[in-house]
């Protein structure tokens, strides 16, 4: 597997081994590459889940540190480098709101998306694009996927919020992800 690296508009091809070697050596160019290509995607996910700029920034920073620290654990047979980073970021964000000291700052029951948009106007734009993407899914599937993947709700919280049996939430999420795979294989 090879990666396209963008260094000051210069595109380089680098092997997986070289990327790992570069990250282990704290190579600034490798960091620049990761940051320029993935920070907005990772931060977008972290912000959607945590709803707080300061917490999302912490998550982003911790994600990069973990990527540098655990790059030797990356296994390309399990997915791309980006999906690996994305999982670290999502898990980190969800851990923050569920298990960390920041968990008290976020009240799922009182989550007001409009207010979040006011604080983070860029999220509204991002969400508009997201809804366009998700519009190809059924409403139910779209809603559970949004709450689960983008806002970090647990399945039981989704069941409570949507007044839906727990088992239905699980099956809808499963179907939603599979539908998404058909649209974007």
């Amino acid at each position, binding site marked *: 597997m090879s990666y396209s690296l963008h260094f000051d508009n210069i595109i380089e091809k680098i092997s997986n081994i070289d990327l790992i070697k570069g990250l282990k050596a704290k190579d600034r160019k490798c960091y620049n590459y990761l940051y320029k290509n993935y920070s907005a995607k990772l931060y977008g996910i972290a912000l959607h889940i945590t709803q707080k700029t300061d917490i999302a920034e912490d998550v982003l920073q911790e994600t990069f*540190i973990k990527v540098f620290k655990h790059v030797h654990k990356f296994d390309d047979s399990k997915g791309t480098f980006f999906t690996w980073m994305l999982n670290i970021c999502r898990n980190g964000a969800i*851990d923050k709101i569920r298990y960390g000291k920041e968990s008290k700052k976020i009240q799922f029951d009182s989550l007001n998306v409009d207010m979040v948009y006011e604080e983070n106007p860029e999220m509204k734009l991002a969400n508009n694009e997201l809804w366009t993407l998700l519009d190809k899914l059924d409403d139910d599937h779209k809603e559970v996927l949004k709450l689960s993947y983008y806002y970090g709700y647990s399945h039981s919280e989704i069941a409570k919020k949507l007044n839906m049996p727990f088992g239905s939430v699980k099956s809808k*999420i499963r179907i939603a992800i599979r539908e998404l795979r058909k649209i974007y294989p």
Partner: protein
Amino acid sequence: MIDIKQYIESGILEEYLSGTLTPTERTEVELTADKYPEIAQELASMSLSLSMMADIGEVVPAAYMEEKIWDEILRTDFDDQEELIGPNKAVIPKTSKLPYILSVATAIIAFVTIYYLIIANGRLDDAKAKITSLESENSELSANYDKLKYDYDSLTTLSSIYDIENTKLYVMKPHRRSALGSVVILVWDRTTNQVYADIKSLPVSNSGMKYNLWAITQIGQQINLGNFEHKGISQVIKLDKLHNAVEILLTQEKESGVSYPTMSRVYCKAKIY
């Protein structure tokens, strides 16, 4: 060996990707994916589809973040073997042996404490048994001492009364079938007229009854010389002084006492001469 199709259909991979599993469950999924390439491939494929959502939901972080994160990377010691599964576990780097040492030390202390508690408990039981045994022995010794002292006192008394120069001894004859084995010796100090009864053997006193010694005078008077309870141990009883008696009777009477001997309850008797 798991059923791979069933595992994939169970929805656990979707839960893994939606981040709703606990850190432990997450690790289990990762270990399962390590073991079964089909599961790893399914996870990678699903993950890639979901990553499309991240592509669209981009939000550019504040400009200062790029340098801030880089500074933090430079400051961080990457020799730590921190796990990826959650921030709670990341608080204590695993390279620090202190928690491990503390855990081991705590376990050892707990083990040793429990071991010694068990030993101590066993010893305590032994000690309790020994104390009980000693108490029993002590009680027995005490009883033996009392008996020995009593015997000594009796013998002293006996030796003193039997040594009297002007003493006369009378062996009382059993008068009742139940008292056939009785041995009661009367010791009469003729100088002082003091009488002692040396009870060697006699049936145990009946409940609510006491033995009474009576002196029968020449003119038929019945004088009570004293009473005692007999529990089977030989004893010496000091009685009242004896005057003009021709016969001594040993009866068993009610504890409350009687004025005259009950002739149907005479156990032993002796002629005085």
